[in-house]
């Protein structure tokens, strides 16, 4: 990293003085001012929707608005004829969907779980830092609630938030009984760390692979149940009974290359977030399936959406090397002592500020010329990782953050010796489908849980509350389905037809959902086109095909 030599020297020379000094934490007035000027949520890249249940209300980001108003990929002459009949269709194979499937096991209901990728390919598996639960001394679900409410700017749905916090300890018990191994202290108690905006240590972790630990256990457990897995089946549309109730979905079987209609008595939407729509061109820490499909499908059915005017830009996304741009550097690194430092070697803000405030302040440093420019033209600030071993003893970083070390190793960067360059990365969809405390959307037959929902986290989520979210509300959605499941209904496209009629008044030509990131060029390819592309491949013509009208 010779290109950054000068700045690294400044950072190293200021380190002895900084080592045990804290930096200022902006008060609430200063934080608001900072956010308004620099945070991407506040810059006006948003508009109202012209059609659907939220038309004319709260603004949403421009890129998302295009998708929510978009047309369906379903051909106008397609007539839904169910090939699969099930009691519960879960859409989404991440932590929330898997948790719901496990909770429905042994209840007598048949369960199908559809995912456009493989079970477990999700944002859950990529979560690093941990899961919050009020189990420590001086802590309580009330304190957890207060921290999260302040972090969410007081905009959280307090009923949902209270459930989240009260169910924290029970959720850790449930995950432990499934066989999740959370890190323990020498006395055998779970090790608790702080996170941005936690007033006491409350975050449990498995090194910096907490999501991986939870997801691989959930995945293993689900595969031992009677849940029917529909992997590589992308949800294209929901179907309804003609009277407004959701009664199933049309999936696209990526291997067979054709749509499959599913009739279900209840549908649980657990499709996760939308970082891959790359708002304002930001990099993302999300997996490749995070394209907001569930929002689009639910919106066409008439589901109200909430709080989608805010997204979470995680302050520490990787900025260098280029191949790792956008990938997460866990907040836990900051909670055990790595400071955020600008190009001049100045520790400009307390690194445990709320995520939105810290992200805004990093963007400000760069805007005012105190960032470090990479050879690829990106600009970031330093995360002073070598401080961790100085503060906590040699070997701490390698022992507690093997993932970080492993990722940077192949680029010949050793974070125990060299700081990491960071820039905010699009990380989490704060808002989503409006749900009640039983995870029901405002459309009968459709439940939702996890990142696809909104309200719980208000305008900003705290570290460790999303892994808890999927556990608490994945279980809750399943329990509510069990208690309230309707009889099987007819399968029609009435809601879609109504939406299509409404959108004739707008000019938006987008076809949505996206299914995959634009940059990937991945498509849902019908069987005939698959054969053709196979032939072309054999004759060494690798031109990509776009046989569908999206």
């Amino acid at each position: 990293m010779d290109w950054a030599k000068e700045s690294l020297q400044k950072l190293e020379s200021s380190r002895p003085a900084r080592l045990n000094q804290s930096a200022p934490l902006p008060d609430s007035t200063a934080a608001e001012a900072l956010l308004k000027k620099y945070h991407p949520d506040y810059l006006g890249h948003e508009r109202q929707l012209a059609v659907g249940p939220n038309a004319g209300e709260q603004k949403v980001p421009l890129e998302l608005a295009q998708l929510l108003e978009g047309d369906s990929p379903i051909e106008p002459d397609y007539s839904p004829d169910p090939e699969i009949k099930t009691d519960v269709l879960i859409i989404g194979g991440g932590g929330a969907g898997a948790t719901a499937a496990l909770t429905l096991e042994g209840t007598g209901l048949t369960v199908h779980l559809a995912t456009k990728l493989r079970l477990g390919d999700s944002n859950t598996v990529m979560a690093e830092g941990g899961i919050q639960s009020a189990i420590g001394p001086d802590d309580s679900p009330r304190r957890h609630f207060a921290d999260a409410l302040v972090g969410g700017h007081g905009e959280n749905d307090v009923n949902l938030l209270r459930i989240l916090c009260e169910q924290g300890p029970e959720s850790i018990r449930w995950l432990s009984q499934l066989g999740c191994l959370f890190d323990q202290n020498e006395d055998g108690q779970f090790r608790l760390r702080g996170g941005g905006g936690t007033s006491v240590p409350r975050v449990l972790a498995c090194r910096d692979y907490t999501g991986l630990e939870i997801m691989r256990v959930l995945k293993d457990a689900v595969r031992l149940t009677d849940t029917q897995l529909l992997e590589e089946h992308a949800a294209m549309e929901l179907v309804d009974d003609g009277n407004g109730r959701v009664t199933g979905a049309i999936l696209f079987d990526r291997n067979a290359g054709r749509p499959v209609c599913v009739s279900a008595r209840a549908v649980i939407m657990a499709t996760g977030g939308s970082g891959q729509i790359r708002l304002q061109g930001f990099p993302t820490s999300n997996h490749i399936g995070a394209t907001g499909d569930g929002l689009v499908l639910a919106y066409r059915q008439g589901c109200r959406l909430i709080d989608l005017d805010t997204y979470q830009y995680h302050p520490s996304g990787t900025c260098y090397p280029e191949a790792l741009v956008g990938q997460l550097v866990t907040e836990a690194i900051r909670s055990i002592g790595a400071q955020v430092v600008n190009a001049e070697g100045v520790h400009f803000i307390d690194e445990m500020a709320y995520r939105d405030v810290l992200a805004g302040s990093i963007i400000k440093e760069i805007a005012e010329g105190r960032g470090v420019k990479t050879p690829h033209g990106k600009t970031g600030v330093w995360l002073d990782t070598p401080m961790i071993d100085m503060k906590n003893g040699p070997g701490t970083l390698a022992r507690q953050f093997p993932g970080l070390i492993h990722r940077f190793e192949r680029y010949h960067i050793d974070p125990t010796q060299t700081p990491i360059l960071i820039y905010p990365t699009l990380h989490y969809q704060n808002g989503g489908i409006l749900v009640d405390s039983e995870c029901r959307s405002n459309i009968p037959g459709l439940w939702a849980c996890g990142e696809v929902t909104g309200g719980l986290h208000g305008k900003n989520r705290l570290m460790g509350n999303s892994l808890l979210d999927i556990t608490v509300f994945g279980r809750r959605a399943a329990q509510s389905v069990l208690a309230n499941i309707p009889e099987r209904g007819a399968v029609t496209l009435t809601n879609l037809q109504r939406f299509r009629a409404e959108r004739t008044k707008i000019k938006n030509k987008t076809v949505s959902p996206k299914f995959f990131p634009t940059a990937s060029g991945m498509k849902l390819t019908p069987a005939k086109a698959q054969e053709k592309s196979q032939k072309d491949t054999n004759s060494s013509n690798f031109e990509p095909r776009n046989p569908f009208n999206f």
Partner: protein
Amino acid sequence: MTGKTVEIKILGKTIQAKAGETLVHALWAAGMPESVKTGCAGGVCGACTVTLRYSDGRPGGTELACMKPVEAGMEIFPCPVEDDNPVLPVADPELSHLQSAFPTLNRCTKCGSCTTACPMSIPVMDSVLRMQKGEFETVAEDFTTCIHCGLCRFVCEDKVKPHNMGLWVRRSLGMSRNVAITNNEDNAEQEWRYLLAEDRGERLQRARQFRKSGRVGET
């Protein structure tokens, strides 16, 4: 370091890639996104397993396409690994349980292929030998970073299933642990009444106060 392109080969087809980018991004740019299965593009889902070889004679091997930067002359072959049926874990696991759950455990011929294949640098073969001795705590530690890409099982001539056993051991130990988790219910009703003020602004003020001490009326 910027702007340079290199040639790599995938499935016999030569493509141009930008120096410094990963194989997955190179395949996206070349219009071949589905030639290698991809899930997270962040090194933790294990979908994008490939084998590769170098033109200069260096030993190739197995890799995750989302983590491997392109190099000139590199030749890539997709290597998807099918899932294997899981085996129910048991609380208080003993060696005999592992042996009956995974009958191929003792077939290991110590060739070391599994360790070579592991993209997470887990000492897989050593850990299989530890499994044979029932050293489960160490095994659980060994497999902390396992992403279940399945390459260790895929390359094993003797049908040993290291990563499946690793997860079985971890889950079994996890289920056996009994860490006390207490719910703090002291003054719960009073505190909820205080925190759930009707007025939004008042509620936020009270939350700000409450989080300082975790109690009503203290700072």
